[in-house]
C-alpha cells in the first residue's frame, strides 16, 4: 500500500473531494463491521491520508458534489487517455504514474463513497457511480496489461550458456560381455564439475528489481479495488509462460513413459544427465527466486502468494517428477548405475529446497511427491548396484581369453568402480543396511582409515571378490598351467594398479592391496615353475657323457623353441610387470644356460649348440609381446 499512497501527490489547498471522502470513510467505518480486509485497509490508508490535511468533518454540500464531479471527470479523462496507449506507464515516468494512480484513487474514492450510501443517492449521482465503475474497469484492465508488459519486458533469466549440459563426455556403454569400457573413456567422466556454477546463481532475480515497486503498486491497487483475481490470473499466466520458456532454453523436453521405456541408452543417458542438472537449477535457483518474487509482490496476502506460486510451478514440477518416475520404470541395468546415483543424489539434495518451496498444506502434495521420488530412486539405485554384482557373477565364458591378458570384465568392473568414490556419501547411506560378507575383518592389521570399513568399501570389495571368482573360473579354461598363471597375474595386477592409482585405495585399504600384490606375485612364481622348471632341469649335468650332453642341449633348444613359439603370443600389457618378468626369467634361464655351456660347451662342440647365451637373452625379450601370429624363429633377432 505504501507505494500506492506515495504515488498520490500531496496537492495543497482545501478540496471538497477530500471532505466528502473523509465523511464517507467515517460513516462507512461506523456503519459496517464486516468490511472486507482489503477495503478496510484502503479505508484506513485513506483516512490517515486525509487527516494530514486537517480537514474538518463538515457536511457535504451540493457545491461540493459538482466539484467532485469536475475532478472525477478529469480523473476519468486521465484514465481513458491510457486506455489505448501502448507504451507502459512505467516508461512514461514517475510523474505520469503518479497522475494515473491519483486519478484511479479518485475514481475509487467515489465508488467507496457511493457504496456506503446506496439509498440516498439521486439519479445524477448514480450516473457518476456507473461511470466510476466503467472508469475503474478501464483502469484495471490497463493495469493488467501494464503488469503483463512490465513482467515480460523486465524478466531476467539465469543465463543459459552457463547451464548448458555438457555433452562432450562419453559414458559407459554397457554390453553384456563387458567389452566396451576402456580405460581412456573413464578418465574424464565426472558429473560434479558444474556445481560451483549453480550456486553462483543461487539468488538470481527473475525480475529486474528496479520495476518491483511498480509491480507492487499495481498489485496493491488491484487488490484494493477487488481486482485481485484478475491480477493473480494475469500474474500466473505470465510467470508460467516464462517458466515454460525457460524449460525450453534448458532444452528439457517432456517425455511420455512410453518414450522413456523405448528410448535407447544413449538418448536416455543424455536425458537423465539433463534432468539431474535441470531439476537442481529449477528447484534451487529458479523456483526459489520465483517464490521470492511472489512473496515480494504479494507478501501482504500470504495465502494468495502461496497459491499463485503453486499454480505457476505445479505443471513444470510435475513434469520433472514424471520423468524421474518414468526412468524408474526401466529395469535396473548396471550401466545405469552412475546416472541413477547422480539422479538420486540430486533428488536427496534438493529435498531441503523443496521443503522450503512448499512448506505448508497447499503444496504438500508436491513436497511429498519429491520425497517419494527420492525414495524410489534410492531403491532403484540400490537395486541397480546389487544387480551389477549379479551381472558379474553370471558373466561366463566358454573359451579361454586370448593371450592371457586383461579380461574385459576386469577392465569394465575396475573402471566402473573407479567412478564410484565420487558418490561415496550417497552409496554409504544407501548400502548401510545391506549386509555383506567381507574379506577384511573390522579394524585389524594395518588398516586404520574409517573409509576402509564403510558400507561402500565392504560392498566394493565384495564385488571384486565376486569378480575374482569369475576370473578363477575363466582361468580354469586354459589347458596350459603357465598361461593360467599369466592370466591371473595380469588381471590381479590390473586390479591392484587401478585401486592404488585412484581414490579406491582408501576404500580397499592397504591390507587388501598387500594381499592382492602377494596374489599376483604368487602367480609369477607359479608361471616360472610351470614353464621353466622342467626345462632348466635339462641343464643340470651329473657326469654325463658327451652324447647325453648333446642330447640335453638339443632338448633344451627344442623346449625353448616351443616356449618361444607359444609365449611370444601371450600378453602382459603392463610394461613394468613385463620387464620384471623378463628380468627374472632372464636371470634364471640365461644364468643356468651360461653355466651349462661354460661347463660343457667344449665337450658338446660348437656345431651342436644352436643358441648362444645372447640369443637366449634376446629371444626372452620377445615373450609376452602378444604377437598376432607365431613368431618365426628366423626372425631378425637371430643371427
Amino acid at each position, binding site marked *: 500500500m505504501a507505494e500506492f499512497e506515495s504515488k498520490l501527490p500531496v496537492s495543497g489547498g482545501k478540496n471538497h473531494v477530500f471532505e466528502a471522502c473523509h465523511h464517507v470513510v467515517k460513516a462507512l467505518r461506523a456503519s459496517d463491521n464486516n468490511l472486507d480486509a482489503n477495503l478496510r485497509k484502503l479505508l484506513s490508508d485513506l483516512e490517515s491520508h486525509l487527516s494530514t490535511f486537517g480537514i474538518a468533518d463538515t457536511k457535504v454540500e451540493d457545491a461540493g458534489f459538482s466539484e467532485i464531479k469536475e475532478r472525477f471527470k478529469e480523473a476519468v479523462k486521465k484514465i481513458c487517455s491510457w486506455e489505448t496507449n501502448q507504451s507502459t506507464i512505467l516508461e512514461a515516468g514517475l510523474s505520469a504514474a503518479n497522475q494515473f494512480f491519483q486519478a484511479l484513487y479518485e475514481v475509487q474514492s467515489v465508488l467507496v463513497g457511493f457504496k456506503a450510501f446506496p439509498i440516498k443517492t439521486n439519479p445524477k449521482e448514480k450516473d457518476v457511480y456507473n461511470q466510476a465503475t466503467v472508469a475503474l474497469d478501464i483502469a484495471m484492465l490497463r493495469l493488467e496489461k501494464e503488469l503483463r508488459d512490465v513482467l515480460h519486458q523486465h524478466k531476467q533469466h539465469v543465463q543459459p550458456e552457463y547451464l548448458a549440459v555438457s555433452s562432450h563426455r562419453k559414458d559407459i556403454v554397457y554390453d553384456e560381455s563387458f567389452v566396451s569400457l576402456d580405460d581412456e573413456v573413464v578418465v574424464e567422466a565426472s558429473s560434479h564439475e558444474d556445481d560451483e556454477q549453480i550456486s553462483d546463481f543461487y539468488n538470481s532475480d527473475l525480475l529486474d528489481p528496479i520495476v518491483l515497486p511498480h509491480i507492487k503498486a499495481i498489485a496493491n491497487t488491484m487488490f484494493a479495488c477487488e481486482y485481485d483475481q484478475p491480477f493473480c490470473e494475469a500474474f500466473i499466466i505470465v510467470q508460467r*509462460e516464462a517458466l515454460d520458456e525457460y524449460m525450453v532454453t534448458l532444452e528439457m523436453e517432456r517425455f511420455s513413459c512410453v518414450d522413456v*521405456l523405448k528410448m535407447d541408452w544413449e538418448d536416455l543417458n543424455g536425458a537423465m544427465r539433463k534432468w539431474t542438472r535441470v531439476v537442481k537449477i529449477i528447484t534451487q535457483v529458479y523456483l526459489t527466486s520465483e517464490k521470492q518474487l511472489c512473496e515480494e509482490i504479494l507478501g501482504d496476502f500470504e495465502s494468495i502468494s502461496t497459491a499463485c506460486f503453486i499454480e505457476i510451478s505445479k505443471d513444470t514440477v510435475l513434469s520433472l517428477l514424471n520423468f524421474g518416475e518414468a526412468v524408474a520404470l526401466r529395469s535396473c541395468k548396471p550401466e545405469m548405475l552412475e546416472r541413477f546415483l547422480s539422479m538420486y543424489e540430486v533428488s536427496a539434495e534438493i529435498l531441503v529446497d523443496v521443503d522450503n518451496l512448499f512448506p505448508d498444506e497447499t503444496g504438500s502434495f508436491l513436497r511429498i511427491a519429491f520425497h517419494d521420488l527420492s525414495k524410489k530412486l534410492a531403491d532403484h539405485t540400490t537395486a541397480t548396484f546389487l544387480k551389477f554384482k549379479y551381472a558379474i557373477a553370471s558373466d561366463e565364458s566358454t573359451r579361454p581369453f586370448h593371450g592371457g591378458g586383461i579380461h574385459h570384465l576386469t577392465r569394465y568392473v575396475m573402471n566402473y568402480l573407479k567412478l564410484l568414490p565420487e558418490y561415496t556419501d550417497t552409496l554409504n547411506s544407501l548400502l548401510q543396511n545391506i549386509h555383506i560378507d567381507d574379506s577384511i575383518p573390522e579394524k585389524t592389521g594395518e588398516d586404520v582409515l574409517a573409509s576402509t570399513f564403510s558400507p561402500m568399501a565392504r560392498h566394493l570389495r565384495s564385488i571384486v571378490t565376486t569378480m575374482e571368482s569369475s576370473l578363477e573360473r575363466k582361468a580354469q579354461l586354459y589347458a596350459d598351467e603357465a598361461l593360467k598363471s599369466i592370466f591371473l597375474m595380469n588381471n590381479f595386477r590390473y586390479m591392484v594398479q587401478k585401486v592404488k592409482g585412484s581414490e579406491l585405495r582408501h576404500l580397499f585399504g592397504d591390507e587388501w592391496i598387500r594381499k592382492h600384490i602377494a596374489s599376483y606375485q604368487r602367480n609369477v612364481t607359479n608361471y616360472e615353475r610351470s614353464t621353466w622348471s622342467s626345462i632348466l632341469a635339462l641343464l643340470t649335468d651329473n657326469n654325463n657323457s658327451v652324447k647325453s650332453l648333446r642330447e640335453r642341449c638339443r632338448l633344451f633348444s627344442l623346449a625353448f623353441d616351443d616356449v618361444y613359439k607359444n609365449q611370444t603370443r601371450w600378453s602382459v600389457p603392463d610394461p613394468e610387470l613385463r620387464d620384471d618378468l623378463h628380468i627374472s626369467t632372464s636371470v634364471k634361464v640365461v644364468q643356468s644356460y651360461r653355466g651349462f655351456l661354460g661347463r660343457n660347451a667344449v665337450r658338446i662342440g660348437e656345431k651342436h649348440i644352436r643358441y648362444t647365451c645372447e640369443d637366449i637373452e634376446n629371444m626372452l625379450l620377445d615373450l609376452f609381446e602378444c604377437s598376432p601370429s607365431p613368431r618365426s624363429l628366423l626372425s631378425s633377432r637371430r643371427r
Partner: protein
Amino acid sequence: MRPAQDNQGSFLGRISIRRNQFVDVNNEQEQEDLELFQKHIADRFTELLSPPQPPPSDETNTVASVAATEQIMSVTWLRKLMDVFLCCEAEFKAILLMGRDPTQISKPPFDRLVPEMLDRSIKALDICTAVVNGIDSVRHYQRLAEIAVTALEQRPLGDGNVRRAKRALANLVVALSLEDKENVSGGGGGGGGGNKTTERSWSFGRRSGGSSAASKGGATIGQLKSSSWAVGRNWSAAKQIHAMTANLTPPRGNEAAGLPQPMFIMSTVMVFVMWVLTAAVPCQERSGLANHLPVPPKHLNWAQSLIGIHEKIGDEWKKKEKKGSAGLMEEMTRMEKLGHSLMEFADGFHYPAEKDAAESAAAQVAEMAEICRRMEEELVPLQQQIREVFHRIVRSRAEILEVLEQAGKVSAPVV
C-alpha cells in the same frame, strides 16, 4: 542376488505364504474368487451408473445440489470413479499374485497376456499425466468463472462490473468450447488478434474475445509463448487409448474360466477409466475418441453398468463433438451453459439493472459460484487421486515384474 525379504516383507507376500498351502489343491477357491471379483466389478459400476438417491427433502435446493454432485461426469463422480478403480485394481492384484506359483504367469498364454497388460498400464500412466495437466486447464476456467462471479456480485451493479464480467465470460466460453487441436498444441505462438490461437489450453482465456484492450494486451505475450507439451512430443491420447484396446479381446474356451478372465476384466476397466478421464477434461490430442472404445460383449454380467455409463458419455460426446468441447466434466458443461446465458444478460445490460433480469442473473451467478466452489474443493484432490492411480499402477507393475523375474530365476539355472 535380490534380497528375498523384498517380496516376503510386503503385505501380499505374507498372505501368499499362507494361501500357498491350499490354493493348488483347491481350484474351487479360485473359481469362487473370480466370481466374487466379477460381482464386485458389477456392483461398483452399477452404483456409479445410478447413484443411490438422496432421501427426499423439503428444501429443493439441497436435493438439486446433491443430485448434481452425484451426476455422471461431475467432479465428485470422477473422484468416486478413481476410488472404484483403485478398489478393482487392488482386488485384481490379489487374484493375480496372491498364492500363485510364479512360473504359472510366465507360461502360455500368460507369456503373451501379461506383457500386453503391462504395456497397457504404461500407456495408462501417460494418460494420467495428460489428465492431471488437463485439470490444470480446468483450474484456469474456474478462475475465469470466479472473476465473472465476483464482478456480477457487485451491488449496485454498474456497467464497469458487467464489462469486467463480460470479458471473463467471453474468455471462458471460448476456452470451454475449443477442441483439442486448438486447445492443446505445441505449435508456439498463434495469430495476433484472432479469437483462435494455438496455445496450451490453460493460457487461453486472456487472449480471445473481451474488449479490444484485452486482446491487444495479451497478444504481445501470446506470440512469444514457447511450445510445451503436456506429455511428450507428438503424444496423443486418442492413439494411446486406441493402442490399449488393440489386443483387448475376451478370453475364449478354456481360458474364459481361468485367470485370463479377470485380466481381461481389469484391462477393460482400466481402458474404460482412462477413456472417461480423457473425455472429462482437456487432453492432448483426442480426436475421434468418442467412437474409439470397443464395448465389451453385452452378455457379460459384470459389464452391463459399464456399458451403460459408456453409452451415456458416448452420446454426450458425439453431441458435443460437433460443436467442439474442452471436456465433458459435468461442471464444465454447466459452466458453459451458464456462461452463455450470463453473456446474454451482460450484452443486454443497461445501468441501472432491470429488476427481473437482475434477479434471474443473480440466481445464475449463485449457481456459477457454487460450481466454482465445488471445483475449488475437488479439482486438486482429483488431481492427487489421479497421481495416486499413477503410483498404484507403477507399483503393481513392479510387483508383477518381480514375480516374473523370480519365475525366470526358477526356470533358468542361477550361477
